[in-house]
């Protein structure tokens, strides 16, 4: 298997966090109750904060800046996993299933990066992990509440191949072990589809319509 460059690895991670942050923020104002408006909005803010730091590191390697990576690429250039691209509002069961699956996969990925010989990458992973702990606790709390419900179980079945696609193949057995399911054929990262194009359009609109030379 070809080795990822550091920038490629960072872009996959950053795109996952940015797009999941965007999707989580779609619950702001319409979650089942106020506490969850607050929780999903806060998680979204954290994920986008992680994306920014990851883009900044990638930008240094690539000789550009974080905003250009986040907003100036064409939709087909994004590398986010199909799991985070799905628009799940207003389906709470699928949202909770994705939350549990993504946070579990992300924990495995971050733990792996913390062991990296690259001190910048390992340090950043450590900093991200401090916040992710709370995302996992939130997911765990919801799994305790709803994990036995048929709709949530069905959503986990549906999204399981997507969850595997978040991780590089060598890390997938760990996810299968933690979730307690056999590995199946994963939904791999490919050029994003129509659902993503719509998100991209909305996400980059302000940047694209800004006058030349505008400072952010």
């Amino acid at each position, binding site marked *: 298997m070809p080795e990822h460059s550091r920038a490629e690895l960072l872009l996959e991670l950053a795109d996952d966090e940015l797009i999941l942050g965007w999707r989580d923020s779609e619950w702001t104002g319409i979650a089942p109750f106020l506490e969850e408006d607050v929780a999903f909005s806060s998680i979204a803010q*954290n994920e986008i904060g992680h994306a*920014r730091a990851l883009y*900044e590191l990638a930008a240094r390697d690539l000789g550009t800046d974080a905003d250009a990576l986040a907003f100036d690429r064409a939709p087909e250039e994004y590398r986010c996993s199909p799991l985070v691209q799905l628009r799940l509002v207003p389906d709470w069961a699928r949202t909770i299933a994705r939350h549990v699956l993504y946070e579990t996969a992300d924990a495995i990925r971050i733990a792996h990066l913390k062991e990296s010989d690259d001190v910048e990458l390992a340090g950043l992973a450590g900093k991200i992990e401090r916040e992710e702990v709370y995302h996992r606790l939130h997911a765990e709390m919801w799994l305790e509440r709803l994990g036995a419900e048929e709709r949530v179980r069905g959503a986990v079945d549906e999204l399981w191949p997507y969850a595997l696609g978040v991780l590089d193949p060598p890390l997938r057995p760990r996810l299968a072990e933690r979730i307690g399911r056999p590995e199946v054929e994963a939904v791999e990262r490919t050029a994003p589809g129509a659902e993503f194009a719509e998100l991209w359009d909305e996400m980059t609109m302000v940047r694209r319509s800004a006058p030349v030379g505008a400072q952010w």
Partner: protein
Amino acid sequence: MVMKSVVTAEAVWEALADIPDPEIPVISLVDLGVVKDVSVDGDRVRIAFTPTFMGCPALEVMKRELERAVEAIGGRPEVDVVMDDSWSTDRITPAGREKLREAGFAPPTPRAAGPTTLVQLQSKAFRCPYCSSTETRLENIFGPTPCRSVRYCDACRQPFEQFKTI
């Protein structure tokens, strides 16, 4: 007051000590522990700044305030943002913790050896900043900003904001 021509590290720390946190002004940036290091070379002042929560919108303001404080004592600031694992809530000073508590924010508990668990958050290990009772329960892991949770005190029947331990 006579301005000194050479900036000293002590003078810089003193200048920084007065900068309030933009979001919770009762505590200073130095008390918050985000100033990791100060080094001075003539009038050039380098500050190693470790952000708290990565998505915190106050970070840019903090950075600007650090620069302004250095400029105010005649230094040329360079603020290096350190995105590593070195900041944790354990870096908040004892004085800073006390200021938070006085303002009605429960300060973060010390970091344990392992990661925080749901059982811990749901336990009665958290003290109400108003009445000091530990008869408190978790209302929401998340709160008005990423750094806080919301708890409720059963003794004085008051909701309060608990700093997350990270």
